[in-house]
């Protein structure tokens, strides 16, 4: 097991290396002068010259990549053009709100989606199944920001039940913290619920055709037990793996949701950086989000062993 964890950890190195290379290449291959882009719009020619010298743009591109990677490994992501503060510090500050939102979303989505999917599979072909499937397609189709503004309009502005926007750290009281997270979570969860419910339904449906389900019936096992004990247990691996794949979807949603609800997290940071063309921040955020994606999926790979004894390492 330890050998497996080590092996999987090592296997993330090429993936993260690829991510770093892509991030590096986007800047170098984009039309225009990388130094001018990094210097920002308000830069003087001297500043651009200074940055060009720092980047070593006259050196071969592999050398440039090596130097950049070396800085990266030391945790140096450069400085923000806007605030002139280190990118790593800025990202660190924005991490909390995003982590809170992502956590509430995943927990809420799993709690809602898995039972929905199981019931849809159980009542396959009935109106219950069709409604769940229909709603999940709607969930995939409604843009996150439309949904966000819908919630704000209906619940915050019209019914005045919850705060409109903003974020309160958990240190200032759990009630206040949660009340600010309800609408963003509802917004971000919809697509995630749709994804997980569909996967749960599809997996359970497929497993219900397996021979061992027939065996369970031949034993006289009750339907509820067949569903939960036999079907859902075997569906755990695909369900968990779709949660991992869905993280990418979640990250995209975070960027939009945070700017709709004015949450000072990584997503807002990204949007502000895009508008200000603050490239070092954009680079940093991509690297952090990609690393999060890779490591969450690594954790999920390890979790498979718990759900399926056939997966041995």
């Amino acid at each position, binding site marked *: 097991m330890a050998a497996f964890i080590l092996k999987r950890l090592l296997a993330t190195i090429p993936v993260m290396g690829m991510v770093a290379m892509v991030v590096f290449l986007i800047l170098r291959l984009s039309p225009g002068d990388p130094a001018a882009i990094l210097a920002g719009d308000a830069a003087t020619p001297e500043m651009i010259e200074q940055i060009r010298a720092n980047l070593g743009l006259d050196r071969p591109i592999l050398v440039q990549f090596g130097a950049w990677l070396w800085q990266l490994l030391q945790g140096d992501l450069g400085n923000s053009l806007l605030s002139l503060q280190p990118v790593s510090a800025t990202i660190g500050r924005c991490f909390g709100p995003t982590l809170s939102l992502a956590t509430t979303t995943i927990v809420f989505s799993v709690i809602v989606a898995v039972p929905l999917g199981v019931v849809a599979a159980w009542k396959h072909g009935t109106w219950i199944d069709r409604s769940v499937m229909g709603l999940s397609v709607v969930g995939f189709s409604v843009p996150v920001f439309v949904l966000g503004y819908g919630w704000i309009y209906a619940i915050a502005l019209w019914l005045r039940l919850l705060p409109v926007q903003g974020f309160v750290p958990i240190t200032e009281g759990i009630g206040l913290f949660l009340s600010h997270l309800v609408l963003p979570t509802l917004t971000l969860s919809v697509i995630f619920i749709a994804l997980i419910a569909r996967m749960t339904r599809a997996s359970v449906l497929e497993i219900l055709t397996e021979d061992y389900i027939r065996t*369970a019936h031949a034993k006289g096992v009750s339907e509820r037990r067949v569903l939960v004990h036999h079907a859902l247990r075997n569906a755990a691996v695909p369900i968990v793996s779709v949660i991992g794949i869905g993280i990418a979807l979640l990250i995209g949603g975070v960027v939009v949701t945070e700017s709709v609800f004015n949450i000072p997290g990584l997503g807002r940071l990204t949007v502000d950086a895009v508008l200000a063309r603050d490239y070092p921040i954009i680079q940093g955020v991509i690297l952090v989000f990609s690393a999060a994606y890779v490591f969450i999926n690594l954790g999920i790979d390890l979790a498979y062993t718990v759900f399926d004894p056939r997966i041995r390492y």
Partner: protein
Amino acid sequence: MTSPVLEVRGLTVRLPAGADRPNAIEAIDLAVAPREIVCVVGESGSGKSVTAFSIMGLLPKGQLVPTSGEVRLQGEELLTATPQRLRALRGSRMSMIFQEPMTALNPVIPVGDQIAEVLETHGAATGGARAPRILELLNAVRLPDPERLGRAYPHQLSGGQRQRIMIAMALALEPALIIADEPTTALDVTTQAQILRLIKTIQAEHQSGVLFITHDFGVVAEIADRVAVMKDGFIVETGPTRDVLARPQHPYTRMLIAAVPSVLPKARAPIGAAPVVLAIERLTKVYKSSGWLQAAREVRAADSVSLTVRRGETLGIVGESGSGKSTVARCVARLIEPTSGEITLDGQAIAKLSAGRLRRHRRRIQIIFQDPYRSLNPRRTVGRSIVEGPINFGTPRAEAWTRARDLLELVGIDEAAIDRYPHQFSGGQRQRICIARALAMEPALLVADEPVSALDVSVQAQVLALLDDVKRRFDLAMLFITHDLRVAAQVCDSVAVMLKGQVVEYGPAADVFANPRHDYTRALFDAAPGKGWTFGKAAE
């Protein structure tokens, strides 16, 4: 005779609209007495499995509906019973053993717990009595080290062990009726013999009646007290096993029994000094699963195999699953690369040829696969599949198509069918088409990898006859891979028996069958079901 545990009268089950016949089974009458084994025997599509599932109340809802008749378990009517009542009966008073023990067990639950579930569901052996009862059951099905095996997951057990677990599960509450649906079909022949013996002993120790579904008359001869023969949804003949096997009344039964190949090899003309077409010398194929951070595992799928096939000769390679027989076939056809050793075809060494230089020799070796449903591209007409090879080697189109028509006729398929797609043919017809495709290349060597294992016994006999016929007609050398000794006895001039990658016995078929020298060969012969019964004689 005591009152039967199972009585089926006039049972009819309707098929959904649009099927090829109105009823899956029609007016079925069956009875099973306590301590009796009744075999229902039939080919695929005969309705034998539908019969079993109707009794258990496990038919797919809305698709297959019992329309008339009655099914009585110890006098209690099942067709009109409530779902709750049926559930209470299933597992306690009637239980079932399935064909494929790997898929019939839940892969993520330890097997002991799966047996416990039967007890739990029906509220039997509660509390401290449960664990000892499970051990008792595991002992009853002769599993070694039951304490450890009970905690194992299905994938950690062998096929035979898994089927024993299924039997233990079926036995858990001492049911009046056990239905076994082809319980040994997925197993190797030696394992099959053990499981059959186990079912027989267990059934003698308990009061259960057994309804045993099978397609194999060998198994019938081995195990059944009485037999019912099914065809197209009807029972065409029923009676005590001895009578039905010795004096079959219905023409279909006669045909089925005659189609079972004999274990005695046919007398064959000696091959003599015909030129050697294929020479395999110390052929070895090693699969390595190496990886860093883990010990490299090595499987010797074929280990120093040496064989020769002369023109006009059929060499049978016989072995159980995992013996390496298919590996040899695939190396010879160069679908996989041999690790070492040499393969000589018509004097030309081909084991190490590069893909480009090999291509020239491809047409000399053709292969026929086991699964006729997967060996033809479903999106191409059979004609296009047949002409593909010759056109690759420069045969003019018109000529290739003319020859394809001739070959179709030769293998017994109307040449008008040349523009049809594979799904319009039955399994046996597809295998004939595959033979035509192979012949179109004018090969010197035909490799047949279990060519009849997926076919019904009556079709099997026809395809075997066809293979024998084309071999003679085109003076081919043939490498015939099979797990079935009866089949080998019918078509092979010489036989090589493989075990764990090695050839343990090799010689003329008549010698090997009359006088097996290796222990494993003898074990194989002993395990052949129905060996005491001289099948294949009835026809002569």
